[in-house]
Structures are given as C-alpha cells and as structure tokens.
C-alpha cells in the first residue's frame, strides 16, 4: 500500500510578464487502488498539477510538498520520479523523431525495472498489450508518436502505463478526442492496471463521459488553481447536470 500526498502545493510559471501563480494551494491524498477524478474548466490548472507531479522543469514549486510514501518527490529528477512509480499520461504526447517505439519501450522498461526485460516474454507482453488496446502491430516499428492520430497517441500512453506498471498514474485528459470505441478500450486498460497492479489513479478530465467506464471513489472539482469542492461520484453527476457555473460564479465575484 502506497500513498501519494500533495500538501498545500503552490506552483508558478515564468512568463514574459513575470512570474504567474497557477496552483494556489492544492491538497490531495491518493492511496493505492483508489481512483480520484479531477474535474474542472479549461485553464484551471489541471495540466499544471499533472506536469508538476511529473517534474516538468517549466513549473516552479514555490511552497508545499509532494511525497510518495516516505520519498520527497520534489527533490527527485523527472526520471527518478518515473522510476519510483509515478506515471503521467500526457494531454499532448510528444513526438520523438528517429526513435522507434520498440527501442523506446525497451529502454524505458529497462530503466524503470533496473534490468533489461527478458527478450522473449517482453516481446510477447508488448504484442499482447498492443492487441488489447487495439494498436496496430506495425506501430512498434514507427517512431515515438510520430504521425499518430490523437486517439492513437492516447492509446499508446495507456500502453506504456500497462507495460511499466506504475504505482500511481496521472491521466491528463486521456479521454479528450477519443471516440466511443477508443474511450472504452482506454478505460479497460485503466481498469486492468487498477485491478491487476492495485494502481492509484488521478483521472483528470473535462467531461463526465469517461466516468461511465471508470468509476472514481472521489471527485474533486478544480477551479482557479485549487480544489473547490470534493465528494463522491454524485458530484460528477451534479457537474454533468449543471456544469461548472456554481463554482465559477464566486471566483468571478
């Protein structure tokens, strides 16, 4: 059993107009096996939270903590965080020209496990995982994300999540831009990782649609860089019915 704890997290970015605070005190605790949904309007800071957990250099933590059990995540480099069991499925997966998926997956798996995966079983694992996510076999020979469609990129993020078996996964709008079939395939992948590896999940989404396939125990409404309200799945139903207006109004007053 592991715990990912975020406490009073403040994050700024440097812009041309100077420093801008985006996260204004986020507190959130996720345990293994839990699924938390973070919902909020565009620009509320959801991706900032996700990128900060992963350690993107663009985002400066000005105060607060992130811990993974007894590890100080903020002290760790990006790759150390991944090796410690954190995974970020990115909202916009990056194309890496000239690096094949096969090479990339094997290199990453080796780094995460600290040893090279067994050749025979690894190839089989990759093929099997690709099949389940309905990813064409020839993607293995293509360069990382290069020329993949939006939906393909998202599926490949989930493929990595399944192969790398993280303790905690942050899924940043993995559902956006997916048609209903792809949404189902991707959700199945998350549910598999959840039940097979007891993975803790932070599911960032703009829409409630994916919550028909992945059931969160906790829902957090994110507004203007902080959690405005938390509750159970019923909170998602309310958002579905009424939108974010109730949360936005006081912020604008």
């Amino acid at each position, binding site marked *: 059993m592991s715990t990912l704890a975020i406490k009073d997290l403040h994050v700024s970015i440097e812009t041309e107009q100077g420093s801008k605070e985006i996260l204004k005190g986020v507190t959130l605790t996720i345990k293994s096996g839990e699924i938390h949904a973070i919902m909020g309007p565009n620009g509320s800071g959801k991706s900032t939270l996700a990128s900060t957990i992963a350690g993107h250099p663009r985002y400066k933590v000005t105060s607060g903590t992130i811990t993974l059990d007894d590890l100080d995540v903020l002290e760790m480099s990006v790759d150390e965080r991944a090796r410690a069991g954190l995974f970020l499925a990115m909202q916009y997966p*990056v194309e890496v020209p000239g690096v094949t998926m096969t090479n990339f997956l094997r290199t990453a798996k080796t780094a*995460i496990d600290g040893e090279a995966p067994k050749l025979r079983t690894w190839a089989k694992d990759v093929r099997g995982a690709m099949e389940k996510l309905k990813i064409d076999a020839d993607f293995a020979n293509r360069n990382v994300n290069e020329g993949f469609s939006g939906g393909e990129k998202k599926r490949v993020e989930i493929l990595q999540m399944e192969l790398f078996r993280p303790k905690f996964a942050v899924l940043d709008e993995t559902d956006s831009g997916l048609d209903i079939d792809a949404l189902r395939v991707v959700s199945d992948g998350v549910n598999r990782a959840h039940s097979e590896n007891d993975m803790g999940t932070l599911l960032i989404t703009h829409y409630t649609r994916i919550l028909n396939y992945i059931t969160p125990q906790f829902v957090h409404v994110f507004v203007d860089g902080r959690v405005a309200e938390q509750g159970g799945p019923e909170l998602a139903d309310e958002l579905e019915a009424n939108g974010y207006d109730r949360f936005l109004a006081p912020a604008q007053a």
Partner: protein
Amino acid sequence: MTNSASADQAEQVAGVEVGEARITIPGMSEEGENLATAHEETEHSHGGLGESTVKAKSGGSRADRTTSLNVADFAVPTGREEEWRFSPLKKLGRVLSDAATQTPVTLKVRNTATGVTHGELALAQSPRGTVFLAADRAAVVGYSQTQTADHIKVAANTELSEPIFLDITGEAAGHRANGHIVLEAGNHSKAVFVMEHRGSADANLNVEVIVRDGADVTVVSLQRWDEDAVHVGQQDAEVGRDAKYKHVSITLGGEVVRLNSNVRYSAEGGEASMYGLYFADAGQHLEHRSFVDHNSPRNSSNVLYKGALQGQDARTVWVGDVLIRKAAEGTDSYEKNQNLILTDGARADSIPNLEIETGLIEGAGHASSTGRFDENHLFYLMARGIPEKEARQLVVRGFLNEIVQAIGVESIEDTVQQDLENELKIAGF
C-alpha cells in the same frame, strides 16, 4: 484548404529549438501547448486554391540568377554576393580560379551488372551539359576545366538490385582536381548511385543526373574527406515524366565543403526528394544549398536537411531555394532544415527561400529551426524513467537517424551510423 492547412496547424504550435515536436493533436484545441519554451523557429505554409503568396526573400529572385556554361559570365566572387556571403572565400580561392587539374581524383566504379555502361563525354558532347547549368563561379570553372567527363548510364527498363558505387578519391591535398560526372538513368530504369568521396584534394566536382521518364533514381553523395580537403560542387538533376528522384547528401569530412544540389523537371508527375545530413566539428565549414525549380506543372518536392554542430568555430550553412514558377500549377512542395547545436562556439545559418508565382498549387511550406536540445523530447523520455544522459543520446541519434533512414542502402547506413557514433563521442554523447 489542402494538405498545407493541416501541416500548418500542426507545425505552428511546434515545440522548441530542434523541434519538429508537434505536441498538438490535430483537431484538438491548442490550450496547454505553451509547455514549449522560447525558441527560434520559423514555420510557414502557403498555398491552396486561389491564394497567391510570395515569400519575402533575402536576396534577389532565384529566377534571375545567372546560369551559363561560359566562364566569362561569372566574375570572381567578392563575398558580398548573395550566393557567397556565407562562404570562406579565402579558403575557396583555390577552387574558384579558372585553373586546370593538377592531380585528378580517381574514380572507381563498382557494379558491372548488365545494362550499366561507363563511358566518356567531351566538353560539348551530349548528353553532357543538357541538364547541367552552372549557377556560380565554382561550377562554371569546374565544368569548363574538365575536358573529359565520366558518363555512367543505366539502360532503359533496367532495374538494378545493387547500387552502383562510385569511389572518388582525392590523391593530393592542396592540389586542384576538376571533375564532371554524368549519371543517366534510361526510361523506366531503377538505380541507386553512391558517390563516396575520400582522401584529400582541392576538389571542384560537378554532377549531372538525367532521370528519364518513369525512372526511379537515388543519388547518395557521401563526403568523407580527410580534414584538409576542400570540395565545391554542383549536383544538378532533371526529373522526367512520372519519374522519381532522391538525392541524399551526407557530409562528415573535409575542411570546407560547399555543395549545391538542384532539381528541375522536364514534364509532369515527377517526385523529387532531397535529404542532407551534416556534422560539423571545430573549424569545419559545411555549406549546403538546395534549389528546387518547379518549372512545370504537377510535380512534387520535399527537402529535408539536418545538421549537428560541435566545437569551436564549427560552421554550417543551409540555404534552401524553392521557386514555383507561374507555369507550375499543381505543385506540392515542402522544405525543412533543422540544426542541433551540441556545444558552445558553433554557428549554423539556415535560410529557406520560397518564391511562389502562382496561387494554383497544392501546397508549399518551409520550416527551419536551429537550437539546442528540445526540452519536450527530453521531458517525455525522462518521464518514462530514462536518465537524462541516455535520453539525450536517444534524442540526438533519433534526430540524425531520420536522414540515415532515408539513405536506403543498408551497408552505407551502417557505416554512416558508425561515423556518427564516432562524431558523437567527441562531445561526450
């Protein structure tokens, strides 16, 4: 709009520095794209029916450039000319003079398949000079100072399974060597020519490539000169009806290398691609100029040059001219140059010139970027547990690999890869 519209959208939100990093997903909003940091990058697309755009150019129109086979038409450059302003003329003086060969380069042609012949062509003997049109002083003196050109011909309808290797060796450093090679691929033939330059010379070597209708031709020009070699050259091709032409220039060795790779079309339905890869170390000047002359309708072109630089005064230049003439309706063209600067003290110039004289095109775009590592590439790999050093190695090899993969001749790809590994060791990659 056409292809260019989506390409445009994908490119404009691009990542940083070396980046072809299309971190956006077509059809989705661009919010969040600002993960990218500041970068020097310019990308544009033009085209679509009815739209007529003319790109501002850094010099005069390419259409107005003198082309001739007469030495008197080209003055000795001063360095102020558009086509010479980046070049180290002092070092190039020895190959720009109207001087005869002192010690010739040797040419060994390997591939004796039936259908391949190796002959000679005198100065005015056709097909020599039917495609080649000297566009600067270097080219014209090299042309006229070569009495006997080599003519390698692949007969019509011949499909070669093995490349024709032309081993070109400089025999004396500092000695002038002029040369001219005519590569001719008959109708519907298929051939790969690999010209590999080694040794040292003050080499002024021109090439003309005749790609007859329906032919499929690849020309690989490998510059693996010793470190004191000087090499100027113009490699012209004319692409026939429904023919395919691929030119790959790989420049690793030599003190000064300045190559012009040019394409034009004799009819419609032609496809041309020009790739380049250069790796400049301390003190090297590697200059590549490409010119696609869309002089007739419905042809396509794609130009991609990539460079890496390391060490004090490592210097590269890429100038990519694309001219879409009034007559060239239905043209589809794209050109891109990316440079990866590995250490301080290196300098890369990158200049795409796109001139469009008709709005009735399929698309035309250009992109250029020069910089250090793409932070987003590194972040993505590191976010998957790959340590920074290894991630850098993957990114730089990936960057260069894109061109190596385009060579298409396995034995050459392997040796180029090995050379690149040796280069990368210098800067500790």
